[in-house]
Each structure stands twice: as structure tokens, then as C-alpha cells.
């Protein structure tokens, strides 16, 4: 409790500092005259700096910042802006603002709809305990050897979090596993092994599909803005081998760090597949949607289109009702949409190119770029939200690789996917991800246990993402 309190006191000063710095940047930037940057670029820079400061220091919730970004763009940069006289003074031929609807439209971006589809499937799966039942079935083959049980928990958590949010998956798995693990003697490291295998499985598993975790959406949306649409199945083809390898190696390493003392362990889960007609509709729609997603290349229906099928069918058939629809994590959609919207202005006002022109990148190879952005992303994402880290870095990275890639889509997809993925491996601190916070709160592990596992996962994730990205992915794309 003492540490929580200290954190809270620090948080207050951080808050006011964030407000002053962020709003200060928004007000001051337009009045600077930075060489080679358009007046609109100055305003966009003000919004970008304010958003970054707010996202990092969190004077207001991160999703509120995202919504604020859209509002700021509408009020300052769009054709409905409130500062027309100022624009007239800046531009001789008159400022050509983008339509304000461009910014609002980001809330209905196909990537956002893709996530909405994921949310509706996850809500239905939770409502009819499909997640619990799948856990029970999938855990069976792992037997009773404690190390294997831990592997099973990690793998199952990973599979589920590829389709549900990492946080919801962690909460469900903790509910299932913790009461049973709590019966293991207190000094047996097996308790810590299982308690850690859940957040590790969840954080890594989220990488596997486009809907697994919001940073994936940030990377995909940035690519889509360049006209590079990555099919659901292509993302899985790239990400799944990486997820499997890093999960296995993390498990192997964690078993060395926390060797189980007990000989056998049975993880029993008390649940049965529900047989009501609504439950069966839920299973069928889940299977249909995921099936259509992974076969996107065969039928050519984009995943963003498929995603709207469960959004409509689940409530139409009464599988979900108003209450569950209200319960979607709408703030995550706004969080991502704000980032997409900011990316629009970064590009449109020439701000992204301008930022890049400040540094002589000619000395950097793509490998160098990826390593640099990966390291920065990993460091930042341990301290602030993964989505925010990706949102700040990806638009800059994409402007950098664009000229190098030429028209080669693989050369564009690979570095952006690497950066979007590496942030998900950031889980050293309790604040790095919500699954970490949940694991720590159970009291089964301590912060240093989390740090040990987090460093292991982080190093494995970084190294293998870069290796796979540079060596394997070019062969797959």
C-alpha cells in the first residue's frame, strides 16, 4: 500500500505538469516559424506534441486525449475550423483545409469496425462461457506434470487472447487458475510460474491476429492509409510462428527461473458447453467469422467487411442484448481512432516528412531503423500504454520507410509490423500492461518476479521479431 501511495503523490504532480506542457505546446507551436514547415504543419505539430504529452503523462485518460485530438483537428485544421482569419493571414492563396468529416470518419475506419467485430465475438464468448469451455478442452492434452500445465495455461491464454482482449483473457484465466494454484504450498515456485504464465501468454498471444490487441490495429491502419491492405490471414501467417516460438522459449526460460516443486498438478475447470439455441448461435457465428477471417485470401472479402457480420447477427439473433453492447470497450475504439486521425494530419500537413528531414537518415539501413524504433518502442511501451507507444511511433516510422520501400509492399509492411509487434512484448513493470497489474494483484507474485519474466519475454520478443521480420517474413510475403 505504501508504494501505491507514493505513486499517487507522484501522479498528481505528473498530472499538472502534463496539462501545462501539453496545452502550452498546443498554444505556442502555431506561432513559431520552424524552417521548411507549413503553417498547417505547425498547428499539427502543436496537436501532436500535446497528444503525446497527454498520452504519456496522462493528465486526462488516454482515450479522452484521443477524442480531444479529433476535436482539436476539427476545430483548428478542418474546413469547419474556428480560426479562419488566422489561416487567411498565413496562406496567400487561402488555406485548403480537409473536410471535418475526414477526422470523424476515422471512428468508422475499417480497422475500427474489425475491432468492433472482435468485441462482439468476445462479448458473446464470455456470455455463453465459450472461453471457459475452450480453456477446459484445450488444457486437457497438457496432462498433469506441473511444467506442462504451465505451458498449457500459457498456450491457452495465448490462443484466447488472440481473439479476445489480453486483459479480459487474463481476468478469465486468473479466475479459473488462481483458486486452484493457491492450494500449492506457499514456498513452491510453481505458484509464481502459473501466475506469470497467464500475463505472458496474454501479452504474447495478442500479437497473433489483427484483432488481438490495439497496437496491431495501429500498425494495420497506418499501412492501410498508404493503400497497403494486409489481409487477416497474412498478419496471422507472419505473427503466429513468432508467437509460438517466443511463447515456447519464454516458457522454457520461466521454468528455469521458477522450477516447480510439486510432482503433479491437476487444473480442473468446472464448466460445460451450454446447449441453448442462443449458445449454439454464438458458437456458429464465432466459427463462421473466424473462418472467414482466416480464409480472406481465398474469398477476398476484407476482414473489415466480415467483422460487421457478427456485429449485426449476434444482436439480431438475441445472442447479445443492449446491455452487452453497452459493455463493449468503446474507449479502446476511440483511443485507436484518435491515433488514426492524428496520422491523417501528420501526413496531410507535411509534418511527418518535416520531422524526418530533421535527421539525416541516409546513414540508416532498414535494419538500423527497425532496431532503433523497436528499442524506443520497447522502452516507451514499458512505461506507457502499448497503443499509445505504437500510435506515436508508427506514423513517423512509416514516413521514414515509405521512400525506401518504393512501391514494394513487403518492404513497407515488414518494418511497420515489427514496430507494432515489439511494443506488445513490453511487460517488465506492473504498469506496462493491465494483465501485469492483474497478476501482481493476486499476491502470488512480486514485482521482481514480474521484472524477471518481463525482461526474458522482452529480450526474446525483440530479438525474434527482428530476426523473423528480416529473415523469414520476406519469404512469406
Amino acid at each position: 500500500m505504501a508504494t501505491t501511495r507514493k505513486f499517487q503523490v507522484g501522479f498528481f504532480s505528473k498530472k499538472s505538469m502534463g496539462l501545462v506542457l501539453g496545452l502550452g505546446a498546443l498554444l505556442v507551436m502555431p506561432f513559431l516559424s520552424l524552417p521548411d514547415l507549413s503553417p498547417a504543419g505547425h498547428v499539427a505539430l502543436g496537436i501532436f506534441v500535446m497528444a503525446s504529452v497527454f498520452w504519456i503523462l496522462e493528465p486526462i485518460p488516454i482515450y479522452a486525449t484521443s477524442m480531444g485530438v479529433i476535436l482539436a483537428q476539427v476545430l483548428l485544421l478542418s474546413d469547419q475550423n474556428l480560426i479562419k482569419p488566422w489561416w487567411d493571414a498565413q496562406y496567400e492563396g487561402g488555406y485548403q483545409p480537409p473536410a471535418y468529416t475526414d477526422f470523424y470518419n476515422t471512428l468508422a475506419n475499417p480497422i475500427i469496425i474489425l475491432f468492433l467485430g472482435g468485441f462482439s465475438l468476445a462479448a458473446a464468448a464470455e456470455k455463453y462461457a465459450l472461453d471457459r469451455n475452450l480453456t477446459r478442452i484445450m488444457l486437457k492434452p497438457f496432462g498433469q506434470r506441473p511444467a506442462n500445465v504451465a505451458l498449457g495455461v500459457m498456450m491457452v491464454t495465448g490462443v484466447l487472447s488472440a481473439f479476445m482482449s489480453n486483459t479480459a483473457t487474463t481476468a478469465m484465466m486468473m479466475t479459473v487458475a488462481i483458486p486452484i494454484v493457491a492450494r500449492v504450498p506457499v514456498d513452491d515456485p510453481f505458484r509464481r510460474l502459473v501466475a506469470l504464465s497467464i500475463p505472458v501468454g496474454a501479452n504474447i498471444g495478442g500479437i497473433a491476429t489483427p484483432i488481438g490487441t490495439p497496437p496491431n490495429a495501429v500498425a494495420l491502419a497506418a499501412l492501410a492509409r498508404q493503400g497497403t491492405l494486409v489481409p487477416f490471414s497474412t498478419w496471422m501467417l507472419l505473427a503466429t510462428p513468432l508467437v509460438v516460438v517466443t511463447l515456447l522459449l519464454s516458457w522454457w526460460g520461466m521454468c528455469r527461473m521458477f522450477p516447480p516443486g510439486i510432482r503433479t498438478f491437476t487444473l480442473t475447470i468446472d464448466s460445460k458447453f451450454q446447449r441453448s439455441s442462443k449458445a449454439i448461435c454464438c458458437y456458429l457465428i464465432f466459427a463462421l467469422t473466424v473462418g472467414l477471417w482466416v480464409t480472406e485470401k481465398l474469398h477476398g472479402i476484407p476482414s473489415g467487411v466480415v467483422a460487421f457480420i457478427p456485429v449485426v447477427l449476434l444482436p439480431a439473433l438475441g445472442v447479445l442484448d443492449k446491455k452487452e453492447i453497452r459493455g463493449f470497450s468503446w474507449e479502446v475504439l476511440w483511443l485507436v481512432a484518435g491515433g488514426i486521425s492524428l496520422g491523417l494530419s501528420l501526413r496531410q500537413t507535411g509534418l511527418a516528412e518535416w520531422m524526418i528531414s530533421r535527421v539525416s537518415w541516409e546513414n540508416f539501413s532498414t535494419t538500423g531503423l527497425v532496431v532503433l524504433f523497436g528499442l524506443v518502442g520497447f522502452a516507451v511501451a514499458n512505461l506507457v500504454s502499448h497503443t499509445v507507444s505504437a500510435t506515436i511511433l508508427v506514423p513517423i516510422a512509416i514516413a521514414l520507410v515509405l521512400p525506401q520501400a518504393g512501391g514494394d509492399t513487403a518492404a513497407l509492411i515488414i518494418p511497420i509490423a515489427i514496430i507494432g509487434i515489439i511494443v506488445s512484448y513490453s511487460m517488465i513493470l506492473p504498469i506496462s500492461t493491465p494483465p501485469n497489474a492483474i497478476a501482481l494483484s493476486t499476491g502470488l507474485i512480486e514485482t521482481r518476479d514480474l521484472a524477471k519474466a518481463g525482461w526474458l519475454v522482452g529480450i526474446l520478443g525483440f530479438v525474434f521479431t527482428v530476426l523473423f521480420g528480416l529473415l523469414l517474413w520476406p519469404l512469406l510475403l
Partner: protein
Amino acid sequence: MSEKIHILCVEDEPDVLDVIVRELSVLEDVFPVESAASSDEAREVLADIEAEGGSVGVIFCDHIMPGENGVEFLVSLRKTEQYRDTRKVLLTGQAGLDATVKAVNEAGLAHYIAKPWDADELVLVAREQLSRYVAARKLNPLPYLKHLVMDLVGDTLRDSLKSDR
């Protein structure tokens, strides 16, 4: 800072009160344990907790006490808005049928522990009732999770933090 959820024990016999407080002290790193020797003193403690912005998750109350008895005290709490969700446990060997019926019907009694009790049982009841309290209030269970019963707060946990960030 998350809300401080307290455990309140009301018992007129000092020795018994000591035992209860000592047995529940394993939860004290998350849930502060307060004690009172009578319902009047209990009201003072409640006022202090409220003044600090805290709340009471569970009250363990003896029945036979000088002045207002335990059941009357719990019934009066039930009628007070901020203690409606507070889980009320009667810890007694002496409550007759009428008093017990009144406690269930009018005080919304959550649990009845007969004297003598077992320390593990007492702690488990406290953890269960605190879990139900957190769930009923829809509080974020994370700060309290260490001592909560997972099965009882699983849904609350998922609902309060379902999203990634």
C-alpha cells in the same frame, strides 16, 4: 487512491473482541480491521471511517450487548443508505429464533457464525463477504484482489478492466 474498505468487529467482551481482531489481522494489509465494544462506539467508528472517505465492507457483530443489541444495530444500518451494501455477519451463540429471523428479514443478514468458531472459517467468511461487497459495489477489485475469492469477483474483474491499453 482506491477506496479503503474496512472490517468492523462489534463485541462487548474485550477478550472475545481481541480474538476476532487478531484472527482477522491476516487481512489487515488490505482491509483495516476496526473494533468497537458497543453499538454506540461502533457508530463513532463508522463516522470516523466515513470522515476519512473509507467504507465498511463487512461487519461482524455480537448479538447480546449492553444497550442496543446486535440485531437492532444491524437493522438500523440496513436503513442507512451508505451501509446498505455492507455485508452483515452475526457472530453469536445467543441469538434466539426471533432475533435471527429479524436479522435475516430486516437487516439483510449475509451470514451467521455460531460461537465457538474456527479461525480459518472466520477469515474465509470475511474474504467471501468482502468479495461480495466489492462485486455489489462494482468496485475495481484489483487493489483488494489478494484477499478476495476469485470465483466471486471474476466477472467484476473482467467488467472493470476488460480493455487493453
